[in-house]
């Protein structure tokens, strides 16, 4: 395996199979550059987009479980009338943190993980444009998430709902530090999103393989591009809102102090101007994933690629003009309500285009029902339900009956779980052999799929009924007096929903079991297990650190597929002309002689670590602000002066590379 090239010394020819484990020299003592490519250092100081992608995924998965436990506690509380599992305060903290965790610490970073790992591979690049910034983003996410969750043991978590409406989130009404943790934690994870977005946009625009025009980019990359644009422009809006919140709570500013004449709707507008694009930030990556998976397992190209790209961009753009539909009941006045009602309906059109195109991709195909494919089809079905219930509350008068009831909870869980999460699972099954070199068990996978689907429909389906029967959200309990009788009584359906939640948890558990089982088995996946179509499959699995021995020249959409198959333009018949191994051998034969890879660095993690220190400082002690601030200055200064590729002096003098114990190949292969 080829690792970072030692500049000017013993250049390693890519593809030669020579494995060089590099160790840092002792030149600067403990402050030497961490160029080590083995052991924990190779992960903590890495700037490799693939390692960062895996770490994003692993941490996001952990937070998924945290958020899931929170959800189970909520459903346990609501399983019967007058639930006593949680106290009122704890219940409020639970639903606040459930939403916050799932949105900011699971779906967004999981999508970031997929994007990090796959985008450079899909566009034929060797890394992202700003590798150290990429590492910095990951550590911001991790430390921000940990910071946010330490509030549980430092006086209580945030209890104002993830939407944190003012003035209920003021210090007067929420005196614990929970909301301070929430605001600062999201500010830190916001930095992760913003730097990640800047990085990925520049990467996608600038680092495509020769010949890869924008309209030849894989659809996943396209959707990620749209999402990153949404992030780049939406994050600053929440940043403003969070600063106002922090200045209010920590420094006594009056932004949401009604007594001083403030208008509480200011917060709502800022929050939803961010919050609505955020919805598309959550689902579009999964739309990208299934748009990759469906063609592969239908054995035909994505139907209407241009339309799917265009509708993705249109959803992203229109998403900026609909935020006030979260506020139809807040008293905007009929003109604003009418305008936002219409713009919201508009957004149903490009969304409908996507569903139509996916269905038509399947049409006439040769469908192979792998687990990845099943999750993808599951997404189409469940998301359609969520989309249609969405249309029912684009109709503003109807929405004033439904908003803040369980009907909305049902709607957005069909969108977020049925859309984003099913897509993420589809992506796991599809790309697992690429990332870890082993295929997840299809047998457990199918169980995983069916239990998850049944669980999700049992959990969220009844919420439609519960909501239309008038049960509001965010209530710590419900009572028999308002439950009604007969088939649609709230009691029965609340029980169904709670049971469904535990089935859903089993579904997720099956996935974890699958991961463990797969990790233990020795069998390697074939190079091209799915007969895939895009560039990320044109390298070894898992890919080498430099991704491609030689950067492929792209001639068409689905480049990999067209290298394997030749199409008779008259009859449309396909002939297999090459195997994946042959395509790969061809690339290796033309391997680039010299490849510079960016070197690891201390400074991203140090800089990211300084931020939560400052956060604790703002909440508990001003001294810590100074400590964190100095650490910020130090690490930025060091970062600035550090060249992106390490000097020779950072390395040990050249010796026998084979003397290294273990070596990086083993390390990468087993570290799942």
């Amino acid at each position, binding site marked *: 395996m080829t690792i970072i090239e030692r500049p000017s010394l013993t250049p390693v020819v890519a593809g030669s199979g020579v494995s060089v484990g590099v160790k840092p020299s002792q030149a600067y003592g403990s402050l030497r550059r961490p160029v080590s490519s083995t052991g924990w250092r190779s992960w903590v100081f890495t700037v490799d987009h693939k390692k960062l992608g895996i770490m994003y995924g692993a941490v996001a998965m952990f937070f998924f479980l945290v958020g899931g436990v929170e959800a189970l506690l909520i459903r346990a509380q609501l399983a019967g009338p007058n639930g006593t599992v949680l106290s009122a305060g704890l219940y409020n903290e639970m639903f606040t943190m459930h939403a916050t965790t799932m949105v900011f610490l699971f779906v967004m970073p999981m999508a970031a993980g997929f994007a990090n790992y796959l985008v450079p591979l899909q566009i034929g690049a060797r890394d992202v444009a700003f590798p150290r910034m990429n590492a910095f983003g990951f550590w911001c996410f991790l430390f921000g998430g940990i910071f946010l969750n330490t509030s549980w043991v430092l006086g209580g978590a945030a209890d104002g709902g993830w939407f944190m409406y003012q003035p209920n989130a003021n210090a007067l009404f929420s005196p614990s530090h929970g909301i301070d943790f929430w605001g600062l934690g999201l500010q830190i994870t916001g930095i992760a999103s913003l730097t990640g977005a800047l990085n990925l946009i520049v990467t996608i*625009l600038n680092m495509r393989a020769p010949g890869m*025009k*924008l*309209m030849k980019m894989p659809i996943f990359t396209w959707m990620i591009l749209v999402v990153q*644009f949404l992030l*780049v*422009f939406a994050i600053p*809006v929440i940043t403003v809102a969070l600063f106002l919140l922090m200045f209010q709570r920590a420094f006594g500013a009056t932004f949401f102090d009604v007594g001083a004449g403030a*208008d509480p*709707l200011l917060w709502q*507008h800022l929050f939803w*101007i961010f919050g609505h694009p955020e919805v598309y930030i959550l689902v579009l990556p999964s739309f990208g994933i299934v748009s990759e998976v469906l063609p592969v397992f239908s054995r035909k190209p994505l139907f209407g690629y*241009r339309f799917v*790209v*265009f509708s993705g*961009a*249109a959803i992203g*753009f229109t998403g*900026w*003009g609909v935020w*006030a539909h979260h506020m139809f009941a807040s008293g*905007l*006045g009929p003109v*604003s309500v009418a305008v936002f009602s219409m713009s919201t309906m508009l957004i149903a059109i490009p969304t409908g285009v996507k569903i139509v195109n996916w269905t038509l991709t399947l049409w006439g195909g040769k469908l192979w029902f792998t687990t990845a494919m099943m999750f993808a089809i599951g997404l189409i079905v469940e998301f359609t339900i969520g989309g249609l219930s969405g249309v029912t509350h684009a109709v503003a008068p109807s929405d004033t009956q439904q908003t803040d009831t369980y009907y909305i909870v049902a709607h957005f869980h069909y969108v977020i779980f049925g859309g984003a999460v099913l897509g993420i699972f589809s992506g796991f099954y599809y790309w697992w052999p690429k990332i870890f070199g082993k295929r997840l068990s299809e047998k457990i996978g199918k169980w995983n799929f069916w239990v998850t689907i049944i669980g999700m429909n049992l959990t969220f389906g009844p919420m439609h009924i519960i909501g239309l029967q008038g049960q509001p959200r965010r209530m710590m309990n419900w009572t028999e007096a308002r439950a009604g009788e007969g088939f649609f009584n709230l009691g029965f359906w609340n029980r169904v929903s709670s049971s469904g939640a535990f089935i859903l948890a089993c579904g997720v558990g099956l996935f974890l079991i699958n991961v463990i089982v797969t990790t233990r088995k020795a069998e390697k996946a074939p190079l091209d297990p799915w007969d895939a179509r895009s560039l990320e499959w044109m390298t070894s699995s898992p890919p080498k650190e430099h991704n491609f021995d030689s950067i492929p020249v792209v001639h068409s959409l689905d480049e990999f597929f067209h290298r394997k198959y030749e199409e008779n333009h008259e009859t449309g018949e396909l002939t297999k002309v090459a195997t994946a191994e042959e395509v790969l051998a061809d690339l290796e034969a033309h391997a680039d002689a010299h490849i510079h890879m960016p070197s690891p660095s201390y400074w991203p993690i140090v800089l990211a670590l300084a931020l939560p220190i400052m956060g604790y400082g703002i909440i508990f002690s001003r001294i810590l602000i100074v400590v964190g601030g100095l650490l910020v200055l130090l690490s930025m200064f060091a970062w600035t002066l550090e060249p992106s590729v390490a000097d020779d002096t950072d390395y040990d003098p050249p010796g026998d590379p084979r003397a290294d114990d273990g070596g990086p190949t083993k390390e990468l292969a087993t570290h799942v």
Partner: protein
Amino acid sequence: MSATTEHLERAGHDSDGHDYVEHHPDSFYVKIALALALLTGLEVTLTYVDIGALFLPLLLTLMVIKFFMVVLFFMHLKFDSKWFSFLFYTGLGLAVGVYLAFLATFRFFMSS
């Protein structure tokens, strides 16, 4: 968007890889700065002279002119790749559109 980006891409490929394609003599920038100073002077003067209903539109026009003089010339956006314009103006346009709509929901433009 697809049409735009394709167009942008061609524009990008046309450039020779150098970012500062066109050079202006320093005197050019001095002239721009002088104009900016004059416009600022005009703006300040306006606030001391009562010109009635024209005041606000005139002031805002001057502001916009100044804004774009810096963007187009000092920041070189006029002579640079269309990609930069695309990225910056998308942000600017979204900000202007979204925040004007935001203020409109508060009936901001009706009261003043």
